[in-house]
């Protein structure tokens, strides 16, 4: 009998959320384990000795690290339901490119909005809005980045949707005004149970960021 996969995770992590969405999309029953960063579990340190970061998916005793790797692994290990990628090599390559864009440009920009103040935050805001617009243009009129079906790029980005309210509050921006199609896409994805069950409420994230800013930046 196969063991239940274990997901080592941290509730506000948009990267951990990706793994949650992926597993739920495939209908995989998994054990969720919350990590305390001030006291990382032996399993985490053993499973990811190089980075010591979450998420880590431990399946049949073997660890898979890095959220996009986890999503791809989940797609390949449970191939029969809800494929995350198109079947043609070019379409697959494009999906990898756009998820990588989310990981590089979008991630770097959003971090500056909630973790920084002043000039650095302003620079982050500009980069963030630019990245939003590029992504919105890539989405075009499709219901999902994956076309008619929710897929890899959607999974890579939707988890940030739970952070939108925090970006708006602490960055003083209106994401709906800047990229309405992307917000509509976010709402569409949230209608999926795999997504709504995996993302925490926006207000909780706002609270988390407020706490972080108070403790690290001296103010909100």
């Amino acid at each position, binding site marked *: 009998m196969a063991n239940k996969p274990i997901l080592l995770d941290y509730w506000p992590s948009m990267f951990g959320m990706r793994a949650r969405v992926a597993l739920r999309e495939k209908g995989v029953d998994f054990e969720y384990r919350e990590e305390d960063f001030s006291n990382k579990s032996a399993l985490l340190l053993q499973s990811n000795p190089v980075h010591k970061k979450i998420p880590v998916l431990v399946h049949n005793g073997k660890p*898979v690290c890095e959220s996009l790797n986890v999503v*791809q692994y989940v797609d390949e290990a449970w191939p029969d339901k809800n494929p995350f990628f198109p079947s043609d*090599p*070019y379409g697959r*390559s494009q999906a*990898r490119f756009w998820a990588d864009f989310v990981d590089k440009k979008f991630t770097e920009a959003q971090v500056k909005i909630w973790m920084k103040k002043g000039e650095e935050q302003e620079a982050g805001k500009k980069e963030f809005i630019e990245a939003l617009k590029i992504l919105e243009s890539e989405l075009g009129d499709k219901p999902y980045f994956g076309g008619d079906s929710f897929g890899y790029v959607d999974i890579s980005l939707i988890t940030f949707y739970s952070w939108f309210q925090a970006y708006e509050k602490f960055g003083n921006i209106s994401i709906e005004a800047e990229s309405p199609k992307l917000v509509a896409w976010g709402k569409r994805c949230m209608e999926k149970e795999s997504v709504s069950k995996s993302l925490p409420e926006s207000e909780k994230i706002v609270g988390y960021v407020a706490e972080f800013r108070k403790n690290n930046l001296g103010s909100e």
Partner: protein
Amino acid sequence: MTEEVILLDFWASMYGMRTRIALAEKRVKYHYREEDLWNKSSLLLQMNPVHKKIPVLIHNGKPLCESLFQLEYIDETWPEENPLLPSDPYKRARAKFWADIIDKKVNVAGRRIWTTKGEEKEEASKELIEILKTLESELGDKDYFGEETFGYVDIALIGFYSWFGVYDKYGNINIESECPKLIAWAKRCLQRESVAKALPESEKITTFISERRKKLELE
């Protein structure tokens, strides 16, 4: 239907070298186009408007960007020869994990070695040796990172070997003495025609960087 494969590249790029090796491993004929990174062609800007970087692989008019994704694409499009990635999902995930580490850590440290001075440079040298030792430990006693066969992780890393001379010179380190197994692995890879043809001579890269440093007023 004849396939048209074009590679927009830069001779010294360890990323471009990856794609050259993969295409050669699969015996795919392609047109190599050298880009001047300080005067990018309109084709490059058109094919990679988001990042404006090489390498860009253009297959039948359609652009593919980011070297590691090009490796996967090449593996999927020409599956018959020399598979680059294993078929087992867990082994694939491990391969991608190590390639990601190479991408995140090796170039960052390496680049800081030849572009900075003093403490920053020393720190970068330490970091580079640390990551190379981690990779050497992952290699263990295997001939290749891909276990029995030369593959994805080997291709992801081998291009940096042509830059080791630069890191040694400006970082004041000796990678061969710190990581002898890794050097042995690199020489083993160089015995493959695909690799030998893709990697420029170390001395050329060292000369190129010396010129870059002069322009950046570091020498």
